[in-house]
């Protein structure tokens, strides 16, 4: 018996019990319980009558440095990190977007050097001008950009390099990060789960 059929049988039993209560029981409260059972049974039966679609998660991929052979491999992994663990797409868009809360990154790989991008990701305050619009010593502007290499995002150096490779590739630039730069440390050889982009 399929799951839907089983649930339909249960639903019918619930409705049947409710109807029996209303037919044969006099006690007021029990009759109300019977009435509630009928309503709930009917609701369940209706829900079982519409198309049954479950939402299955996409397969989870591993970031295994042993499999990285080319710069394009790195960029492909960087793209996945960009849209998942790196959380970049929570604020940045690639191309104009009304809902993006932070700068559009389209073409960013052509505008900025890889060193500058790396520094922007790991030290977001480095080139932020100080705020003098108040009395006393100047203050730093609050950096809305988080430190990507620290918690809660906490990308490793390899992952950041992969993201840079992706940013360069999607900007039509040659990828200047080479697979040899991926350090074969004990940490890096551990597969890292990467979720598919939405």
């Amino acid at each position: 018996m399929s799951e839907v059929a089983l649930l339909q049988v249960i639903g019918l039993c619930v409705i049947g019990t409710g109807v029996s209560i209303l037919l044969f029981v006099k006690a007021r409260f029990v009759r109300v319980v019977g009435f509630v059972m009928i309503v709930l049974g009917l609701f369940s039966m209706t829900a079982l009558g519409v198309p049954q679609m479950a939402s299955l998660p996409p397969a989870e991929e591993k970031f295994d440095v042993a499999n990285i052979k080319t710069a394009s491999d790195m960029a492909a992994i960087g793209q996945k990190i960009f849209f998942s663990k790196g959380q970049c797409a929570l604020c940045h868009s690639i191309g104009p977007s009304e809902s993006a809360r932070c700068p559009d990154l389209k073409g960013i790989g052509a505008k900025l050097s890889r060193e500058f991008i790396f520094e922007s990701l790991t030290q977001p305050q480095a080139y932020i001008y100080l705020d003098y619009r108040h009395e006393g010593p100047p203050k730093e502007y609050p950096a809305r950009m988080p430190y990507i290499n620290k918690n809660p995002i906490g990308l490793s150096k390899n992952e950041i390099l992969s993201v840079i490779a992706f940013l360069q590739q999607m900007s039509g630039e040659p990828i200047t990060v080479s697979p040899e730069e991926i350090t074969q440390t004990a940490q890096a050889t551990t597969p890292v789960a990467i979720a598919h982009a939405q």
Partner: protein
Amino acid sequence: MMNQGDDPTGGTAGEQGRGAWLAGLLVFLALGVMPLVGLAQDVPAASATAYRDIPGLGSRNMVWVVAQLHLLLAGFVLGVPIFAWLCEIVGWKTGEKRYDKLAKEFTKLLTSSYATTALFGGILLFLLIGFYPKLMNYLADVFFPSFIVYCLLFLVETATLYLYWYGWDAMQDSKKGLHLFLGFLLNVFAFFIMIVPNSWATFQASPVVISEGTDLQRAWAATWNPTWWPVNIHRLIANVVLGGYICGAYAGIRYLSAKNEEEREHYDWMGYVGNFIGVFGLLPLPFAGYWLMREIYQYNQQMGITLMGGFLSWLFILQAMLIGVLFLGSNYYFWLGITHRIPGSEVKYRKPMMAMLIILLLCLGVWMTPHSLVASLEEARKMGGTHHPLLGVFGVMSAKMTVANLMILVTFMSFIMYWRAGKEETATWAKVARSLMGGVLGVAAIVVIVLGVWGYFVPAIVRINYFSVAQVLIVLFVMLTITPLTALLLRSAKTTTEMVWGKMPPRAGYALVLNAVMVILLMTLMGYARSSSRVHWHIYGVMRDSSQYAYSPALGYAAAFMSLNTFLFCMLVAFIFWVATMGDKAKANDAGGKGHGAQGTLPAMAGGAPALDERK
């Protein structure tokens, strides 16, 4: 007992044999939750453990049931103080003791539910820590300061509730102002108790990137996520609706089992107040829901599409059905009231009631029309496309927004009709006022329909940002114009037919129960929608759910759980109310036995202060 580390065990493993779950869960609940929770906690904590599970029952199912019961109870205990306090103010201002008595009866239900709510909250916390340690570690890391705030709020809320409830009789006269202030504080604390955990749940759905900073700064940044305030407002209104309809259902059941005229009169009136509060909250609720949905789309279009056009799209047809039944049930109760409480009104209002019924049913039909039917190739060919040539027109948002607004207008007019029934306006300007109200209503309905039709021919962004908003504002304008105008008109009106309480047929009690069940089902349904919109993420786009329960079950399976949760909640509330009123019944019987029959038969109400129990 199973531990699961970071490695996923496969997304669909849990699908098999899920149907056996409901029966298993019932047995499990019968055996008691706590021993199994103990089992889950026996496992030594390991930092690598991401998930724990109880095979056969499933961690997600257990959390689903307990979280839902906790949320429903919480909705009730946070919604009731709002109108209990308002009733007390009305009683104080008008001098009508029955309102004060009603407020106290509401508060009595609140005090007895409060501890159970906290109990389920505690169980939920243990289950979450046990089953989802990785997620809870993350949330604790981000939100720890607000955990502390939450605990402090609970302390002051509990202390205020004790003072409010136990000080009711003692503060009746000279200290009434202080008592009202306590009621105000109770609601302020309750509001914050609601919005603090809302920040945790909304952060899971719409996380923001958290920059470096102190713990407080990080928690604050995460709290101010895009859906926090829309959910706060939506839940606040929904809690009032839930509380009102549950109190109405309580009154309905007590009315059905009433043993004398006095009880019937009291619980008929209480049922009316409960239904009125429910409808009062129900009218603006779709607007709050619309705002929430709009914010979700703005935050992440993909999430919005998953909800409205993806695998959850059929859920909104079920939602339309439940809301439609709720509107029908609420209106039906008003119409029963006009027919049975106001002798002679039946003939006068039969035609308007029939017209309203037809409009409501037509609107419901449109609201329930699916946008795209799941059809075979052959069926699609016969229809001439995936959208039915006729029905497809009604399946789009423009049509649905229009009928939702029309249903709100009809329900509002039902209430106005009930309000004016049995009275004759004597003001010199009554005729002008009536014409004005009729004109406002007619023009509003036409404009709402015109905007709805026009919405088909403009880009979606224009419809969403301007037309839909205009429709909502028009309906609000109608309510804000006609309500004070009617109040002014009735101030000098002559009562031609006195309202007779306690004459409602038994089906009125069942209608109140039906309304409460619909609201509870709606809350369980939308809880599933909110949770499923995150698809396979614990925290959307940030922390992936890599457990075996990362999938969202189909509607049929989910609906079975919703029904189970609704049933358990109803039974739980019935038990709590039964326990809460047990002492009063004994008191009433005792008083009856001592020869105070007339007064002693009044049960349960307001803790039995004799001075308050005098009939008005």
